[in-house]
């Protein structure tokens, strides 16, 4: 089976800084891959190259087996979501979500039906007429998802979408995304610098370091690899737990 998205030997430099070197990525269908990496290590650049918003210096991106690295981003069917929800401030919630459908000049009835279905799925029913500045951070992110999902993209690229949210909202959004992702059988890449979030959100984990990508077969493989600080954390918390409460668990 052809993987929906394959990137081969992608390299990119900004001035004298080599950000991505000979990077290889294979995205399995209907899965979310978390890409973990420190801030500024090139995660956003990689996503932008995949989405067609930046040209790579070298390398090929294939969608369903076809090379598309030179295509305009609008024909790719890959949606890139920024950290900021970037809702269109002059459009209300309904129009924001319906935006992609209007671009494709769907008929009015279909637009209304599909948009309202999405709004219900997002649990934002009744808020169709609200303007973006009237929505909370979490609500804005949900609208941003809806706006992207409604166009049935082949691949969804999420660039630290929950970075600006407070801890409670973030965990609500994480649950929400997992649920929707399962419902829609989404194929996605989820980028974050937070190890816990990466483990939570992804079916698989990859790490971006030194310009190249390492994909792990399973979470356990990742933890065992010693690349992450996860094992240290586990050891740390267990040692505290053993010291202070030997009987509790």
């Amino acid at each position, binding site marked *: 089976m052809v993987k929906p998205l394959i990137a081969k030997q992608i390299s990119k430099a*900004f*001035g004298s800084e080599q950000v991505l070197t000979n990077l290889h990525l294979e995205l399995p269908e209907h899965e979310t891959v978390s890409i973990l990496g420190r801030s500024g290590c090139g995660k956003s650049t990689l996503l*932008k190259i995949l989405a067609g*918003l*930046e040209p790579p210096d070298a390398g090929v991106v294939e969608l369903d087996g076809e090379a598309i690295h030179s295509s305009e981003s609008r024909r790719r069917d890959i949606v890139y979501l920024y950290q900021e929800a970037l809702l269109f401030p002059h459009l209300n919630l309904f129009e924001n979500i319906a935006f992609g459908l209007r671009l494709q000049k769907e008929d009015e009835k279909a637009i209304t039906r599909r948009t309202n279905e999405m709004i219900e799925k997002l649990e934002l029913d009744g808020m169709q007429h609200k303007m973006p500045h009237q929505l909370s951070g979490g609500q804005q992110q949900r609208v941003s998802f809806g706006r992207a999902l409604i166009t049935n993209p082949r691949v969804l690229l999420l660039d630290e979408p929950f970075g600006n949210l407070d801890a409670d909202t973030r965990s609500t959004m994480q649950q929400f995304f997992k649920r929707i992702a399962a419902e829609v059988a989404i194929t996605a890449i989820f980028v974050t610098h937070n190890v816990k979030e990466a483990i939570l959100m992804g079916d698989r984990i990859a790490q971006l370091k030194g310009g190249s990508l390492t994909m792990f077969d399973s979470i356990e493989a990742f933890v065992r690899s010693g690349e992450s600080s996860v094992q240290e954390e586990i050891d740390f918390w267990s040692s505290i737990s053993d010291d202070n409460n030997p009987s509790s668990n």
Partner: protein
Amino acid sequence: MKISGQTLFSSKPEAAGILLFLLLTVAPLMAGIIYALLYSFGVIGLMSEGMTLAYWQQALGRQEFWFSLGYTFYIALATIVLTITGALSLSLFLKKPFRQGFPGFSLYVPLAFPAIVVAFLVFQVASQSGLLSRMLWQLGLISDSAAFPELVNDPFGIGIIAAHTFMAMPFFTLYFINLYDGERIREYVRVAGSLGASRMQQLQRVEIPILLRRAFPTIILYTIFVLGSYEIPLILGRQSPQMMSVMIINKLRKFSLSTIPEAYVAALVFVGIIIVLLIIIFKTRTFSYDLDK
């Protein structure tokens, strides 16, 4: 996060945009300055005999030139001092009434006046046969129009300063009122108050310094406008001293051809002054390319 890096001309529209900009902004400027330089050095021109420093020496040796330069700066300085004092007072003490309703709207009205109309008005009001003079006559304080003091076409440029101030003060008042909100000065004042500052100290140490610092680039910009003023001194000024724009145009129009290169010398000095002032503005930390107008 920087704006995504691009090569020099990554697309046709971009090249077209930059080309248009160069054509309408940079090229004419360079062309004009080059022409003036060549003319002032005698390389071109109706009377040119080749490269010479004579015109520069002549122009800079004239008392009239330095007088005009000094006078121009004096007018600009007087205008700015009066304007800023007035605008600060209005915006700090009368902020509330001037924010809305009739007074709020009235502040915008002088913005609708071009320089030439303001000059005309000042003339009608303040000249010896003007409205003020007539009022004094009616009150029996003067018996003759000639007894009214010379407020226009006078050596101190009183009419000129008044005209510029009438235009500038409402603008700066509005500007300061907007800055006040934008810079959240009220909150700084509260902090100062909680640290024990009196009302006078809050004014002196918080409100005024913050406003002036933030407004500094705009103040310099407006000064440049006043320095280059033409219509107002044309109507309200006198033969000597003249503001620089008037002097330059007069020299260009005179029938004696030798004054033309000197006019270009003066124009180049003026352009040089503007460059210096612009550099000062660009070096200010509070400068941003937005026009907060």
